[in-house]
């Protein structure tokens, strides 16, 4: 088991900031199209962080032209260029799926106070 952990440790990204559900993040993802590489940014609210070693993922949701879009990213994928933490949200649960049923003003998340 130790050896498998060691192999997984080598793959982990330590440059990705800590964030949790309710935070707003901007994910810069490398995309290869037609032999060319470009970087696509996706900004939204983190719905959940699935913890783990190499299998860790996180779900980001944003509302684009009135349509809700969710993307699940592998946290340690080499195709994630970087993750920017835009703001920390104050939410009470670790999986804020209730956000999917809310729209407009109700779908806002309070930002975390500095003294929290």
């Amino acid at each position, binding site marked *: 088991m130790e050896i498998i952990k060691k192999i997984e440790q080598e793959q982990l990204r330590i440059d990705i900031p800590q964030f949790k559900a309710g935070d707003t993040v901007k994910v810069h993802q490398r995309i290869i199209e037609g032999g060319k590489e470009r970087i696509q940014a996706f900004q939204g609210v983190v719905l959940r962080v699935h913890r783990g070693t190499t299998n860790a993922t996180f779900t980001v949701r944003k509302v684009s032209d009135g349509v809700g879009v969710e993307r699940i990213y592998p946290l340690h*994928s*080499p195709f994630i260029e970087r993750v920017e933490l835009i703001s920390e949200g104050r939410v009470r649960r670790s999986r804020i799926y209730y956000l999917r049923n809310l729209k407009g003003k109700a779908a806002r998340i309070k930002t975390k106070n500095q003294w929290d």
Partner: protein
Amino acid sequence: MMADTLGIMGRKLGMTRIFGDDGTAIPCTVIAAGPCPVLQVKDAATTKDKYTALQIGFEEIDEKKVNKPEKGHQAKAGRDYYRFLKELRMDSVEGHELGQDLTVEMFAPGEKVKVTGTSKGKGFQGVMKRWNFRGAPASHGHEKIHRSPGSVGMCAWPSKVFKGKKMAGQMGNRKVTCLNVEILDVRPEDNLLILKGQVPGPKNGLVLVRKQNRG
């Protein structure tokens, strides 16, 4: 007799995933393989044996655990004592000598290998799990036969059930060989092989990794 190819014994440590160059997560199996010393060289031409083979050992054990005849046999190689011995029939044993170590360095990343192991035992299983039969419908008058095999033969002719008919019975716990298993990484410093996908057997199961092509 088909000759085996050069190989090495190891233990399956478990599975994990590694990220490929194109960003995909590749499932992989980690195997701690070797080093396997050559304990006996059998050559049809020069030794008194009637066939050509290499006998390799794996996993050192304490001298106390080896019985006397076994000890005498293994001592000829001038190495320690080993728990598992395996004979690999070869076309030629040229370049291999008694007491020499076989290590994972014989493999290279990207190479395809054969992996033999004992599959996980599933016990006595019905035909649906063992042979993927469809079973019978859940309703429309079907009673007590939902997972049954149905008819096993024909009529007055041949008035028997053909041999090899797929029926319920012991599933798993038998020797299974996987072909074309790709090697993703070789780490000689830890005696590790990282193989793409899965190999037969449970964690800590004994496996034999062999080269795909002879020679």
